[in-house]
């Protein structure tokens, strides 16, 4: 069985918790990630020569750099897991056909390196579990990633107590900040963590089927096999044709809704570029955008929509929702592929529908208000005209005045009923 010569991954989700960065500053288990210096290869100035300054400011904190007020909360905190606690055995227990099945991924070299918390505008907090499983057998690796991303599988499979205890121990710094102390409810939106994985194999070319199997956390060989999880030819081809991103022979990426996978050959994929730059600068941006849109769309469907959605969208349009983030082709290509995989365009279209609907309702209300004034105005004009025609000498016309008043009253009632029916809609 093939093993990875390099494998590093981030499991990302929106945190089911609420906190301010200042709370973490008082917690010794957490440290603020080092702010990027101004100078140097990975410095702010250098980043701004590759990426647009607006994009860098929207994603990172840099020393001594002023940012727009909307972006002032963007920050990154990290909890480094002690080396003696990094190794987590991955065992599961499940019930299949009445039999209890105990499973241990003995070829899986899992180390949980760190927990990251990323603060974004509009009360969004993303977390990431950084893991390294270099040297793992690929089947164990895909199974391990699947189990970790899903935390507990609905098919009756759950982590063995030893695994759960080890994971709970590693993740304990998060617990005080969670809404629900159960770690299995770690994720604030969606049913699984998103997976960003960088894998290198000692091969001379990237095989599409292996890339697909890794990206979908499937059993290795399932694309060409005969199992119930073997993809149909049409589906497989659609994914390969539409979601692969590739620029050089040494790697290929596959951007899906639940994962972004880059698979490299023995020629090298510069792992540090993927884990230190493309993950925090590009993938997290796409996940943040997706989280924002998804949470607002869900709130709308569940009648929990906020009234200030239009202003939130306007801010997001200004600071995040743009397709090109770099002067260079590769970051733009990666961002566009990741955004496509996450379905951000579709989510944004749904958001736009909400805003348009809100605008239509507002316009109707304005028109209705104008109509009320128009009725009074017409009534007054009609009264003045009739009065001038029937009683030009200013004599009292009580019956006439009563008729005009009744007409105005009926008009007002009609408008009120119309407005009420609009609101009910």
């Amino acid at each position: 069985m093939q093993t990875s010569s390099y494998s590093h991954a981030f499991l990302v989700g929106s945190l089911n918790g609420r906190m301010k960065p200042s709370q973490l500053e008082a917690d010794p288990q957490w440290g603020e990630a080092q702010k990027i210096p101004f100078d140097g290869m990975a410095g702010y100035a250098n980043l701004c020569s590759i990426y647009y300054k607006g994009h860098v400011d929207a994603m990172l904190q840099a020393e001594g750099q002023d940012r727009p007020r909307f972006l002032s909360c963007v920050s990154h905190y990290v909890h480094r897991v002690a080396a003696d606690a990094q190794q987590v055995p991955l065992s599961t227990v499940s019930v299949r056909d009445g039999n209890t099945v105990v499973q241990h991924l003995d070829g899986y070299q899992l180390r949980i390196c760190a927990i990251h918390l990323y603060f974004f505008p509009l009360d969004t907090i993303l977390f990431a579990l950084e893991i390294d499983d270099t040297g793992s057998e690929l089947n164990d690796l895909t199974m391990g990633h699947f189990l970790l991303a899903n935390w507990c599988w609905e098919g009756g499979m759950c982590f063995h107590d030893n695994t759960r205890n080890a994971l709970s121990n590693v993740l304990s710094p998060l617990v005080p900040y969670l809404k629900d102390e159960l770690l299995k409810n770690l994720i604030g939106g969606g049913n699984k963590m998103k997976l960003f994985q960088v894998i290198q194999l000692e091969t001379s070319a990237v095989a599409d089927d292996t890339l697909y199997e890794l990206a979908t956390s499937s059993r290795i060989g399932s694309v060409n096999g005969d199992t119930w999880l073997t993809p149909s030819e049409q589906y497989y081809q659609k994914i390969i044709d539409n979601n692969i991103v590739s620029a050089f022979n040494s790697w290929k990426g596959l951007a899906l809704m639940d994962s972004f996978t880059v698979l490299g050959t023995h020629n090298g994929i510069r792992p540090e570029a993927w884990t230190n730059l493309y993950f925090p600068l590009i993938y997290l941006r796409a996940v943040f955008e997706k989280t924002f849109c998804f949470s607002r769309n869900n709130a709308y469907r569940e009648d929990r929509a906020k009234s200030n959605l239009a202003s939130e969208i306007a801010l997001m349009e200004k600071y995040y929702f743009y397709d090109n983030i770099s002067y260079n082709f590769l970051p733009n290509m990666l961002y566009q592929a990741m955004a496509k995989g996450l379905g951000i365009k579709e989510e944004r279209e749904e958001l736009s529908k909400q805003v348009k609907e809100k605008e239509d309702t507002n316009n109707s209300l304005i028109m209705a208000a104008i109509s009320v004034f128009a009725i009074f105005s017409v009534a007054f004009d009609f009264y003045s005209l009739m009065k001038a025609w029937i009683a030009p000498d200013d004599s009292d016309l009580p019956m006439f005045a009563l008729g005009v008043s009744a007409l105005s009253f009926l008009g007002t009632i009609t408008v009120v009923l119309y407005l009420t029916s609009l609101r009910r809609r």
Partner: protein
Amino acid sequence: MISISISYQTREHLAPHFHQELPGSKFYCQQPENLLEEAMRLFPEQFRQNHPEADGRRRLSLHFPHPIGISGVVAIDELTPEERSRIELADRQGQQVRCVATRRLFETTECQLVLSADWQLITMFPGELAPPLPARPDEPSAYWDRHVFIKWA
């Protein structure tokens, strides 16, 4: 990855080894899956390199780094002179065997697993792997001449 399945029938059969209130050799853990998980984690190579024997069964003899239970069989050398004097014949599942009644507990770090070729658990017990009992108690046996069953007093 290694997967072992435990059927309901096997779980019933193993109950005396895990329920502390029933007589017989005991595992310290409460459930067979807990010990199996630890075994798979500690001895992956033994599982991976194991092959079925002629009868189609896999047998693994595992030495844990800590006591995992109480053995139901003890070497006569480990008994006190007073205990040795109390060795007697007793009925065990229809067979006459030598045993000794004692309140002492003989901890063991050893565990025996018997599995089918497709990794279904057939049985597991704490203690060393003993050869089959001789047909009669007076029949010579290198192992059973030096070991007796424990009958907890």
